């Protein structure tokens, strides 16, 4: 909560800083987004509803939210594992591995998409071994999950890493000396302290997945009703000069994403408030 009452602080300038923050957020986030709503408002309710409830569009929501959620859950587990290994063990090449984690941030998403498609297609390095097992990845929804997992990896690792770094080993030693086994030490002592950071990383990875376009369109195959993501539908509508249709779908994405992120943030805030 923002309180406007003045509190003594060694660094003055609360009103100036808050003013600048609001101005900045307005210019960068609020004003561009509000045009989405304004453009949509020129539609009638009936048009709006029929656009956003079209079967193909609804299938794309399901795919986008489902694949993002699945990818974020995968990243939650493996991101924690990567962070754990990077913090707790020292081994040759650790620095390189650490730098590698940020690569999905830096790589142009189209490059990632093309590379993943090449690897997972039926003649690719990985795809050729998966396909005989009856598991097709490229040009299916699974391909989308793979791309989104790749894109979202750094978020969980980078949010959890600092928390793990400052966790006291003594607390774990205390748990073990009190008779806790490894699983109990992990679930009852280590994990509760990581929850807020894990949730933040999860929310960021999830949000990134919802908006991802570049890497997904190459690997997805983009078949209507099967592997067509919502951002692609928006682009398609734009290419057909259907600006209202595009913004209508965008509004749905915005509202749902904001609601979900707000819920996750509240959960994170609530769980960290309890003991910090």
């Amino acid at each position, binding site marked *: 909560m923002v309180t406007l009452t003045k509190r003594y602080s060694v660094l003055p300038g609360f009103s100036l800083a808050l003013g600048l923050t609001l101005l900045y957020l307005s210019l960068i986030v609020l004003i561009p987004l509000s045009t989405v709503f304004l453009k949509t408002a020129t539609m009638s309710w009936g048009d709006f509803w029929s656009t956003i409830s079209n079967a193909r569009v609804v299938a794309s929501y399901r795919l986008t939210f489902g694949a993002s959620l699945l990818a974020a859950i995968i990243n939650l587990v493996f991101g924690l594992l990567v962070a754990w290994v990077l913090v707790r063990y020292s081994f040759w090449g650790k620095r390189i591995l650490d730098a590698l984690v940020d690569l999905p941030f830096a790589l142009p998403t189209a490059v990632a998409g093309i590379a993943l498609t090449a690897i997972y297609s039926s003649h690719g390095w990985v795809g050729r071994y998966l396909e005989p097992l009856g598991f097709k990845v490229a040009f299916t929804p699974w391909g989308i999950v793979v791309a989104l997992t790749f894109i979202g990896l750094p978020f969980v690792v980078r949010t959890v890493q600092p928390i793990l770094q400052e966790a006291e080993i003594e607390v774990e030693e205390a*748990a073990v000396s*009190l008779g806790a086994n490894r699983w109990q030490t992990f679930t009852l002592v280590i994990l509760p302290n990581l929850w807020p950071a894990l949730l933040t990383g999860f929310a960021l990875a999830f949000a990134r997945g919802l908006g991802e376009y570049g890497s997904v369109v190459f690997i997805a195959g983009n078949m209507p009703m099967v592997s067509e993501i919502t951002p692609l539908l928006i682009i398609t509508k734009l290419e057909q000069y259907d600006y209202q249709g595009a913004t209508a779908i965008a509004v749905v994405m915005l509202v749902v994403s904001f609601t979900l992120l707000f819920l996750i943030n509240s959960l994170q805030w609530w769980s960290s408030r309890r003991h910090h």
Partner: protein
Amino acid sequence: MSIEIQHLNKTFNQFAVLKDINLQVPKGELVALLGPSGCGKTTLLRIIAGLEVPDSGLILFHGEDTTSRHVRDRQVGFVFQHYALFRHLTVFENVAFGLRVRPRKLRPSNAEIRAKVHDLLYLVQMRELAERYPNQLSGGQRQRVALIRALAVEPKVLLLDEPFGALDTNVRKELRRWLRHLHDTMHVTSVFVTHDQEEAMEVADRVVVMNEGHIEQIGTPEELYENAANPFVYRFLGSVNLFHGRVQTGHIRLGDLDVKFHEHAEVHQAPIVAYVRPHELEISREADQNTMAATVSNIYMLGSTVRLELVQVSNSEIIEVELTKEQYRLLKLHKGEQVFVKPRKMRLFMENNRAN
């Protein structure tokens, strides 16, 4: 449960932290491991707990080899210097932790856990703080929670690593007394690590003085104070004045001082160091053959005692003297005045002893 340590060695990165440690802690005793930082006392404690593995040597609990037993199965209670409380759990849940993680068959019922935790909280007068989180407690309260958390599982051995090191003086004194009292009621074999000689002397039944990875001396606080085995122990157990001199067939010459000395009667012309505690020095205004002349350079009033800093006339070395308020008042000393100092008691170590 008694603890026995035999020929224990430990190295970290080719640096010998513990060298051939042999130690026995009888059942029910409260023993202090005392030494300067880096002497290996904490490593020794952690090895007893099973948090560290020795390179060689044996640890026996109640005569039974425990060296390779896991921490979890050693039944030790460990108290850390920085409390190591679970900050996401309430005080109550912190104390209950050790009972809740037991395998289902050995786990007490919820009602039993509640009764037990409340008893322990009562013991440390913290019952009304049961629902607080650790960060809502003071340092002293946190350490008390850490202590009863360790006691809740009824350990056979209680190990404390500088338990009062992070607390301020008053709280430390109170907790020390409380620990002693607790030990007298529960009689659990306890080992605690400290670098504070006053703490070790006040709390422990026996003190193990350690230095550079080995044990210098083991004894009751009184034995150590009255009968230090070597210069290190003597110096570590309190402030001390050093007088360098020579032994000459039954006599010692220390500056102006000439003392009869029978112990090393056969020694001629050997260097010797006399150790005298500040309160073992007497001050008078008349010289005799057992005094040395000194000038009062500083006077510090320390509550019940008065500490004087004197400068020896013969070699301008500094002597520290401690007087009671009463003695000081009778003497009516002034800064810059010349007086005569006489040791009431001294401890002599030949210079070729490890005069460290």
